């Protein structure tokens, strides 16, 4: 799969909120997930750790008010998209955030994701 094809499939699954499928179908086993310095989560490597980080976040959600992922843009073997959510987190109240996510593709798989917010 080309980077464009991976990006299109990513977007197709993201629009259906199938984020678990994105991880199992499109991520390489040793992918890295890089968070910014101001993130509440740490950067991790390995698909199991990325899945665990996602689960940890989901467990914090009290109510999801709205969320979006915009269509990706491709440059070389990277694609980027913008996403955001309006969410109530347990003990932290209602929060809104927007972020840019950049994905690096190699041999048809996502080998890294990096977030900016």
């Amino acid at each position, binding site marked *: 799969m080309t980077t464009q094809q991976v990006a299109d499939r990513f977007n197709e699954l993201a629009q259906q909120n199938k984020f678990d499928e994105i991880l199992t179908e499109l991520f390489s086993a040793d992918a890295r997930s890089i968070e910014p310095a101001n993130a509440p989560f740490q950067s991790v490597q390995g698909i199991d750790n990325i899945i665990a980080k996602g689960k940890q976040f989901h467990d914090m959600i009290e109510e999801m008010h709205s969320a979006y992922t915009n269509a990706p*843009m*491709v*440059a070389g*073997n990277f694609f*980027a998209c*913008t996403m955001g959510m309006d969410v109530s987190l347990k003990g932290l109240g209602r929060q809104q955030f927007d*972020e840019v996510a*950049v994905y690096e593709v190699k041999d048809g798989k996502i080998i890294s994701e990096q977030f*900016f917010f």
Partner: protein
Amino acid sequence: MTTEQVAQHYYELAQQQKWSEIIDTYYHDDIECIEPPNSKSQPYTKGIEHVKAKAMHFTSMIEKIHAGYTTQPIIAGNMFSVGIGMDFDMKGAGRMKFDEFGVFTVREGKIVREEFIMNWSDSGGHEYKA
């Protein structure tokens, strides 16, 4: 000026390769620039004069540009991102090509932070460090 307006004008100027005008018009005096570990530029630059000097140094190393592009911007809150690529000859180092995403943070109509993620290809094994 909204983030969307800054992003759109950035894109228009980038299409015309007017990089100096982008810096002069939209960069905040205290701009922070963060380059990735595989960049050929300094990892961290702060202040418009330093960022300008870095950009001019890079430009001075270009012998010939074969192709280049900037994608339409994507917007998230007060950030926007564009894909940028260039296939060029660098003085003394031969032909090389990079693709990158730049992520820009906008405050009160000015870009206050830029961070890049990049990949080099077809560099012919030559290494160049600014």
